[in-house]
């Protein structure tokens, strides 16, 4: 029951009608892409997978929002979408750089993933350093009695009138995994867009791919950031406020976010690829 007496909104299961509508949108987007430029179907699938990965990864990131800033709830004291975007974009920076230097697909997406994971590892470490060294508050989860990884007991370390505080080890690990998956998804989207734009824009403008490269890189970068924000915000809506990490009961909502992000990415992917569609590719 909500405070207003109505039924609590937002369950953990999948809404079948919504899921079917979503799958139809994905199929229509794929079909439209195939009709307008058959070679762009692979980049669009990459974008859909990347978007779903971002939505999945965001759920791992322990975000406490405003209550965490007062030591009232565990997690990092900032917004879900923005923290995930910060980590994922740091990953995108590394992935794009690696792709420029090596041109290897696997190294680049893993480079992006590690970039996101490293950003989250440093951030989570500094959050714990602040709680422990500056505020004298030990880490305690409010959602589980014991840490699923280390077996540490939490209830006795939870101060009175709070839901826990700081970042228990499971939340730290969740943050690193979340940053890694989000960085991987963002870099995957960037590389797929870049390859589509490099060949597409060269055909469209009748120029050499080398001449078109700066424009393709910038466009792919801007669109990749846009995709990142779309998917991170969608995942944040699914989380509704705060989440402690993979051990939080809210984590069970993740299939909904994966489908939602895949649908949004499919449609946004179609829009972003329209630029180079129907030009005889």
């Amino acid at each position, binding site marked *: 029951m909500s405070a207003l007496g109505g039924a609590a909104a937002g369950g953990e299961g999948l809404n079948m009608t919504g899921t079917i509508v979503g799958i139809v949108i994905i199929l229509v987007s794929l079909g439209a892409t195939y009709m307008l430029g058959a070679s762009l179907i692979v980049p669009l699938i990459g974008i859909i997978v990347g978007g779903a990965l971002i939505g999945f990864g965001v759920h791992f990131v322990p975000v406490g*929002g*405003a*209550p*965490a*800033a*007062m*030591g*009232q709830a565990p997690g*990092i*004291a*900032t*917004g879900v979408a*923005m*923290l995930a*975007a*910060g*980590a994922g974009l*740091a990953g995108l*920076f*590394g992935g794009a750089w690696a*792709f*420029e*230097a090596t041109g290897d697909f696997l190294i680049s997406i893993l480079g992006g993933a*590690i970039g996101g994971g*490293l*950003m989250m*590892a*440093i*951030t989570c470490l*500094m*959050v*714990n*350093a*602040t*709680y*422990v060294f*500056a*505020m*004298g*508050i*030990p*880490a305690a989860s409010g959602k589980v*009695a014991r840490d699923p990884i*280390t077996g*540490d007991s939490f209830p*006795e*370390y*939870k*101060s009175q*009138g*709070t*839901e826990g505080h*700081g*970042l228990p*080890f499971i939340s*730290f690990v969740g943050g690193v995994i979340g940053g890694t998956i989000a960085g991987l998804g963002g870099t995957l989207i960037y590389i797929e867009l870049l390859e589509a734009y490099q060949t597409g824009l060269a055909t469209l403008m009748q120029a050499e791919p080398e001449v078109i490269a*700066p424009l393709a*890189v910038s466009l792919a*970068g*801007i669109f990749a950031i846009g995709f990142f924000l779309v998917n991170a915000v969608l995942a944040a809506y699914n989380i509704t406020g705060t989440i402690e990490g993979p051990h939080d009961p809210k984590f069970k909502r993740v299939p909904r976010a994966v489908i939602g992000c895949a649908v949004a990415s499919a449609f946004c992917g179609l829009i972003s690829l329209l630029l180079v569609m129907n030009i005889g590719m």
Partner: protein
Amino acid sequence: MEEIVLGIGITALAGALATVAGAAEDTESDIGSQGDPNSQVQLAPQMGYIHRIFNKAVSGEPPAYGLWCAIGAGVAWAFLQLNYNPALAIILGSIVAVFIQGIYCTSGYLGRTASLAKFKQPVYIDIIKSLTSVTMAHAFVAIFCTTAMCYLMATALHHPFALPLLGLIWGIALGAAGSATGNPFYGKERQYQTQKFGAGVPISASGNIVRYAEAGQRSSLDNGWFTTKFAGPASGICFGLIVFLELWRTVLFEKMVAGWGAVIAGVILILIFTFIDRWIEKWGRRTYGPYTEAEEASS
């Protein structure tokens, strides 16, 4: 070899710029009350606690700094295209960005505070006059350092992204690092200074922020003075480490192990930070001890 040495030098300089940017960003957000703790500044008058704290949460810190750094880097890029000296171009870009930040601050304070009129919270004109320029000064340092760092990445390290795009990415990362590290210190340690040290703020105390200083009412300048003792430098270290290590692992190791060097170095760094974090977590529990007995808590 020369290229690597130059790369390491640029990496160190970018890391130093990022450290200053992180510290300035957090101090700006604490003086201006931009981050999540501002929820309490907004809540206080609704609970009957009238205060003189600046209240300008324009948006979350990451999108706000993403915007300001992208504007700074974008304007600097435009001046660079006109063959301006890079230092002058970055300064001019930062000045334009900081004026936009000032406009957001002013409208943010007026709008947010005016919305509290029914709770008798006055709009203090002297707060706008005295504090907006202080937040602008700190924001200038943060934007200038971030834009300069992005310029180094784009020109000396040859990152493929254009300067404005780098400004957007690192602005968002700057806000994320600064708000994650700095917010708890400002929110718990400063706003709720009267609550017990070493414990979270009980939810029942929400809104009852500290409103008085040694003499007279507390000003947001006092909050900046306090948070520069820990939150500012910690945020600086956080963002500095992120930038430095991200560049360092790429510049030094990218060409090793058939291109896998940077990935392997990143994994090793993550493992090192994981061990340090675990040590800090255990040290905290061991040093401060439990609040209640384990049996009592589990009953």
